């Protein structure tokens, strides 16, 4: 019986795939199409996960599986102009900007900037034609789809997204800004953006991925980002997820770190009715530094899930993880932080902290830090707390003449800014500060 319902739930994905194959025309002969087909077969076998899967125990994707989303097969500007985009995106970003509308690259709204020779900042479907040799070396090699249905689905529909390649020794000063816009539509639709970021030896880059929507309607974004950080490279990745409050967002990021590379991820989520962020970082050489920061702001009926995996495969690597969540209304938060220390990964230093602030009695937090250690000469700690605002701190502020609402806001803001202050790009920090203030005000008018 379950098998039957499962199959029916896959139906919309499979029929989407037929349409997608047709829309590709001659392109279906390419090497990449064999991978798409294999991934789709894998997806058909896996089906959507249920809460019986340990990885999805607290997050039910039944609303995604049981509804029907249509694939967007062609680019259409859908009324998006520079003007209405401006209100939604981060102000004051100096660098280049790539804009994707419902998963398709918009050349009109993008500014690919000018870069030193060899640097590629372009859209993936273009790169699949122009730089196929380079792309094939990396694409789908890090995002494993054999055990993750959503990654398999994304790989099946792999078509467009950002492709960034930084050759040896090049430092890109200004952040590269990737904007994924979802537009209004009568029927609910799905997009599968796929990004590939390759940073070679001694290179540096800073990337911002931003997911936004123009209208507050229901749609589904299923995104995958692959990042390859070469020897001594420095990569900072920031993901801002501010989808519409009716949207579904599943995002997976796969990071592969080379010797002495330094990778930082900031993942800030405050949109979506159901959102899930997966980050998998493989520290595959000695001397890696990996920093994962995360912040969740949720209210109403939102359900935001963060799953991270740091895999210490080699010795002498450090990882630091800080994830915070502020939950209001009837929202639900989930955190699962896995740290693996493999047998030979001696002298590992891994630190993980997860803190949650509950602002409402109807909010729920499920947290599961998880350490799996197979080496003996390591330092691994994790800490998790769930609690409320410190009564003494509130009293202190009130004794200084600050009213209780302002005092609560101040402390909540401080709790969140611990994470947002770690973002290096000033524009993003200011943007987040604005979002935080707006959320606090909204919470106050509701409460």
């Amino acid at each position, binding site marked *: 019986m379950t098998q039957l319902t499962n199959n029916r739930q896959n139906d919309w994905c499979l029929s989407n795939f037929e349409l997608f194959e047709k829309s590709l025309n001659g392109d279906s002969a390419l090497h990449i199409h064999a991978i798409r087909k294999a991934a789709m077969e894998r997806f058909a076998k896996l089906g959507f996960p249920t809460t019986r899967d340990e990885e999805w125990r607290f997050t039910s994707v039944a609303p995604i599986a049981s509804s029907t989303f249509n694939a967007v097969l062609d680019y259409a500007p859908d009324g998006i102009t520079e003007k209405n985009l401006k209100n939604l995106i981060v102000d004051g970003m100096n660098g280049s900007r790539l804009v994707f509308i419902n998963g398709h690259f918009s050349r009109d709204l993008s500014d690919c900037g000018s870069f030193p020779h060899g640097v590629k900042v372009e859209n993936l479907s273009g790169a699949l034609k122009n730089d196929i040799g380079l792309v094939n070396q990396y694409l789908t090699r890090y995002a494993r789809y054999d055990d993750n249905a959503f990654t398999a689905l994304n790989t099946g529909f792999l078509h467009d997204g950002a492709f960034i390649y930084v050759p040896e020794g090049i430092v890109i000063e200004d952040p590269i800004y990737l904007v994924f816009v979802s537009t209004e539509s009568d029927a609910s639709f799905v997009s599968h953006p796929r990004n590939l970021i390759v940073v070679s030896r001694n290179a540096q880059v800073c990337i911002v991925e931003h997911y936004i929507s123009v209208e507050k309607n229901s749609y589904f974004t299923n995104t995958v980002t692959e990042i390859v950080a070469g020897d001594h490279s420095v990569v900072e990745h920031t993901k801002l997820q501010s989808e519409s409050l009716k949207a579904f967002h599943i995002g997976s990021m796969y990071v592969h770190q080379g010797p002495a590379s330094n990778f930082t991820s900031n993942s800030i989520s405050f949109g979506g009715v159901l959102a899930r962020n997966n980050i998998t970082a493989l520290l595959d050489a000695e001397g890696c530094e990996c920093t994962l920061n995360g912040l969740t702001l949720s209210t109403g009926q939102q359900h935001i899930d963060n799953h991270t995996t740091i895999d210490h495969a080699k010795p002498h690597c450090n990882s630091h993880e800080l994830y915070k969540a502020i939950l209001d209304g009837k929202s639900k938060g989930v955190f699962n932080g896995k740290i693996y220390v493999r047998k030979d990964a001696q002298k590992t230093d891994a630190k993980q902290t997860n803190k949650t602030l509950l602002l409402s009695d109807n909010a729920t937090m*499920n947290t599961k830090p998880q350490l799996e250690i197979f080496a003996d000469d390591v330092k691994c700690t994790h*800490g998790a707390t769930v609690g409320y605002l410190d009564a003494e701190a509130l009293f202190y502020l009130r004794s200084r003449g600050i009213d209780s609402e302002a005092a609560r806001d101040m402390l909540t803001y401080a709790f969140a800014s611990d994470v947002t202050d770690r973002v290096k790009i000033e524009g993003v920090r200011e943007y987040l500060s604005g979002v935080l203030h707006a959320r606090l005000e909204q919470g106050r008018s509701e409460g």
Partner: protein
Amino acid sequence: MSTETSTIQQLADRDYKWGFVTKIEADTAPRGLNEDIIRFISAKKNEPEWLLEWRLKAYRHWLTMEEPKWPNVHYPAIDYQDAIYYSAPKQKNGPKSLDEVDPELLKTYEKLGISLTEQQRLTGVAVDAVFDSVSVATTFKEKLGELGVIFCSFSEAVREHPDLVKQHLGSVVPYTDNFFATLNSAVFSDGSFCYIPKGVRCPMELSTYFRINAADTGQFERTLIVAEEGAYVSYLEGCTAPMRDNNQLHAAVVELVAMDNAQIKYSTVQNWYPGDKNGKGGIYNFVTKRGKCAGVNSKISWTQVETGSAITWKYPGVILQGDNSIGEFYSVAVTNNRQQADTGTKMIHIGKNTRSTIVSKGISGGFGNNSYRGLVKIQKSASNSRNFSQCDSLLLGDKCGAHTFPYIEVRNTSSKVEHEASTSKIGEDQIFYCKQRGLSAEDAVNMIVNGFCKEVFRELPMEFAVEAQKLLGVSLEGSVG
């Protein structure tokens, strides 16, 4: 490093010093499991109709269940039809005196500081008239009887106090609970029953009695402890002494019920046969233990020291139902050679102002794998509740593993939950410091490990704390990290 490896090698090569077989003539049920076998067990024990019905209900439910696969332990599939589910010991043909007992075994007893009479009891030597266990048991029983404390075997309780058993059996661990608890409900052999009436403080550690009286309770034990309003009891299960046992699978169930202002302290020391250095043989210890703080201000405290068994898989939990109730869990789990342990606790906060503390210490050596898996759940009704968890792991080699899987679920804003975990090894500088002070490397490791476990040992009843410390020394003999 080479000397280190060689000492670890020695440790791995160490044999189970107390493995031997006692032939017992027994009244045995045929192999296999079906409704007739359950009727046979029930008839053998002269059980009332309701209990047989309960067993059969459990069995029918068990048939619909699947063996759980989620724990982080690995073992070959168990053939449940190939086991004997009832075997009552008739008569022993043990050694005639201590002189016939393996001297190695006696040496271990000496190290643990176990008295001569108890040594006789444990090795199965025919006990002489002076130390007749029956008479000793009777003395204890009289003393407890004066206070109204009921402490007897489970089958006796079913006969003598059927109402109490009927009221509480399955009230904490229902027969539908999990695969192994359901199996236990269907075929449980015997166990202990303990009832402390209102306002009574049990004058002795019930362990003392248990150690002498209940050495052969068998494979599917069932323990039920009920503390009425304002009562207090401290109970010690198991034994620091090595336990001989022929059963591969142990699926016990322990239920504790604490009424208003009552307190139950339950301590376990488990040192069953862990299997040989290749992981062959050894006991599978799959236990369901749960306490219910049913009344206000009640308190249940679990303390466990797990050094034996090939696989230990248990999560003593507390349901904090009464307002202001307290749950505690203190654990030391040691895995050596090929031993595996997946253990932890569940704290379910339902009542207001409930508090729980979890302290778990895992030590892995050889190829051992040690997992902490715990759940802290704060229900919406549990305002102002509080939890503190700490789980630390110590690794004594580079082939062992430590894992933590804490689950935290919070649905209440006025509650506070804290969780901390760390993993480390014994520092070379620490060993160096001790050696410099004239201690041998082995003593140094012993001392450091004992320091690591101190928080838990402190919770054990005094004499067992001393024994447990020595036990740890024996378990880790030859291990220098």
